[in-house]
């Protein structure tokens, strides 16, 4: 139940619904029942947030892409101007792990009440763009050995880092 409660809280599910699930689990409902109800509650919450706040979803996507583009510009500038050999590899680590986590954190910070839905909206836009990019450039990418698998790995890590950064964000409770 603890994990389900954590998940439901993370996705911003209403406390009364959470209380209903706790009550039913305590009354003898199975773990499978709880898992299905939790999944339904999360899906419903995300759908509701996106339907009710389409402008916020667009803002979250724009925020994410703006920060990603800003990092791309900085990355290119450092690559051109840096004389240190180790600088580029450090920048790659920052690009794949640290910056996406920061982007996720920023989206969560600027959309606190609907952070999970807004994060997923941005990640969905990233997945869509990646699919478009790989489809459009498939012939060129496939010619280079291991390029596709490397790109897919990096893209997956970037998206996971974004989600981790967003979900690690702890909104300050208002009393």
């Amino acid at each position, binding site marked *: 139940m603890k994990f389900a*409660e954590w998940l439901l809280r993370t996705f911003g599910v209403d406390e*009364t*619904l959470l209380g*209903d699930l*706790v*009550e039913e689990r305590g009354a003898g409902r199975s773990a499978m029942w709880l898992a299905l109800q939790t999944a339904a509650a999360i899906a*419903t919450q995300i759908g*509701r947030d996106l339907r009710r706040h389409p402008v916020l979803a667009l803002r979250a996507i724009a925020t994410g892409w703006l920060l990603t583009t800003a990092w791309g510009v900085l990355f290119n500038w450092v690559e051109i101007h840096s004389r240190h050999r180790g600088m580029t590899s450090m920048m790659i680590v920052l690009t794949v792990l640290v910056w996406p986590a920061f982007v996720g954190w920023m989206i969560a910070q600027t959309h606190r009440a609907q952070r999970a839905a807004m994060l997923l909206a941005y990640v969905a836009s990233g997945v869509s763009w990646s699919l478009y990019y790989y489809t459009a450039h498939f012939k060129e990418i496939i010619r280079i050995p291991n390029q596709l698998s490397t790109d897919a790995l990096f893209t997956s890590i970037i998206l996971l880092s974004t989600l981790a950064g967003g979900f690690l964000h702890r909104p300050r409770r208002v009393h």
Partner: protein
Amino acid sequence: MARKNSLGDLELLVLLALVRLGPKAYGVTIAHEIETKGKRSVAIASVYLVLERLADKGLVKSELGEATPERGGRAKRYFQITAQGLREVRATRAALIGMWQGVPQLEGGTV
């Protein structure tokens, strides 16, 4: 003349559950009522989603109850059908009966 806001399938079931349960209606009891009397399995989250939609239409109202230990200290939200909600249920029943009558294929049978 046709009505503007007709009720959906689950909306009607939820409203009927509210009428049947009276003041005891909250997420768990509504879902139970739909499962036992309506013979339909429903996620509690879906019940809340429908209740939210019905509240937006002014067909239900709600109030918070007291927090209880078996719910981890969380309060129940009790729901009640409004007069407008009751009118909608009656109108939907009349519409369904009107559609039902005089159709030989729908006569008899258990399901």
